[in-house]
């Protein structure tokens, strides 16, 4: 066999291998590329939601103030603006870091390490979900925000309250435009407080933009659903890893890496949900 023909054979062989999917595009495995594709499409879904939030917020004269809406803390504490959500964010970031550790241990084919750090990640994710459940519970049960009713209002004129609400408003209190308030429920009925504005008109506190409630529940709920899904997948992968499924594959626990991508994405989305809902 001459040298010429053997090179030709090799080329044909390589071509065939390529066409049959032998080479890796972008030097990444099929699974990883597809995970990235999924993440992209999901990112656009979230972007659509958050942009809708922006458009609706721009379309009304007032919007609830996040540091007024999110000021409760477990244990009946109030006046702690954004502290609880900061804690939640920290928990989610920490679970992202433990996920990186799981991936690193996987690359070293260290089964025990992978399982341990996956369990830590699950713990972090579950804590985050628990915090979110508490936050929702406060909004639903104590503050009575629903998909169509938003008790978080904001004054657009100055005035004086004529009566108290039994919570933090007393008769005779004055307020300025831009001051915010929460309308309470008394015996299952809304109890907006009467006030007199500068022109002498007597009015009742008006409700905040109803879109706020539905946007909050839909967007944080959609994110929470992603966290829940992530937790289930993480649990399955942890059980598989403990059972030695990925040892046999000899690919450095690639499955852990792919789940890791998804988990970091959930954290990434939270960065923007946090920005849009709590910071801006």
């Amino acid at each position, binding site marked *: 066999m001459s040298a010429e023909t053997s090179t030709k054979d090799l080329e044909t062989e390589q071509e065939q291998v390529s066409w049959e999917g032998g080479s890796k595009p*972008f*030097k*990444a495995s099929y699974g990883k*590329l597809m995970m*990235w594709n999924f993440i*992209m499409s999901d*990112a*656009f879904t979230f*972007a*659509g939601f958050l*942009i*809708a939030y*922006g*458009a*609706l*917020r*721009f*379309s*009304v*004269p007032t919007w609830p*103030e*996040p*540091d007024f809406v999110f000021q409760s803390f477990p244990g009946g504490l109030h006046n702690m*603006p*954004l*502290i609880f959500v*900061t804690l939640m964010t*920290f928990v989610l*970031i920490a679970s*992202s*870091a433990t*996920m*990186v*550790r799981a991936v*690193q241990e996987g*690359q070293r084919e260290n089964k025990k390490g992978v399982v341990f750090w996956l369990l830590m990640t699950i713990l972090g994710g579950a804590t985050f979900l628990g915090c979110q459940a508490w936050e929702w519970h406060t909004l639903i049960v104590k503050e009575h925000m629903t998909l169509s009713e938003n008790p978080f209002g904001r004054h*657009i*004129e100055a005035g004086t309250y*004529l*009566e*108290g609400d039994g919570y933090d408003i007393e008769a005779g209190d004055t307020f300025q435009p831009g001051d915010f308030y929460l309308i309470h429920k008394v015996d299952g009925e809304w109890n*907006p407080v*009467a006030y007199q504005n500068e022109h002498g*008109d*007597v*009015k*009742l506190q*008006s409700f905040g933009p109803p879109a706020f409630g539905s946007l909050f529940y839909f967007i944080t709920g959609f994110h929470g659903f992603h966290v829940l899904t992530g937790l289930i997948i993480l649990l399955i992968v942890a059980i598989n890893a403990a059972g030695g499924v990925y040892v046999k594959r000899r690919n450095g626990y690639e499955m852990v890496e792919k789940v*890791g*991508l998804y988990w*970091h*994405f959930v954290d*990434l989305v939270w*960065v*923007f949900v*946090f*920005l849009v809902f*709590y*910071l*801006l």
Partner: protein
Amino acid sequence: MGNISYEQAKRTVLRGLILLALVTVAEVFIALLGKGYIIPGFYLPTWLVYLAMIGLSLYKAYFIMGEFMHLKYEVKGLVSSILLPFLLLVWGIIAFLWDGTYWYQKREEYRTEFQKEREGHLLEEHELEDRLRMLD
């Protein structure tokens, strides 16, 4: 991780965690400082607060994608095929916020018709008296 040693890689994770936590605390601090919670009577200009928040959040996103999701170490083609489509969002954000502003202006134009619902329910004299009597 390429040629980075295991010990180094572990340190990177810890450093990343601390960095992200600090950036988050900084964001919340700026938010509260801007609204006068930290120093009573002191407010930062809104545009500055917004700029800082968006900047810091984008930095967090850059860090998570680059280090945690390993994008920094992928092939260039993969990175651009992931990042370039997000440029579509630039117009998406401008267009929809623009539209939101337009809805607002249109509503303002027709304001008088809806004034009652919008600015609070006006109470009649006798309604007010009833309410005040109920409270006593």
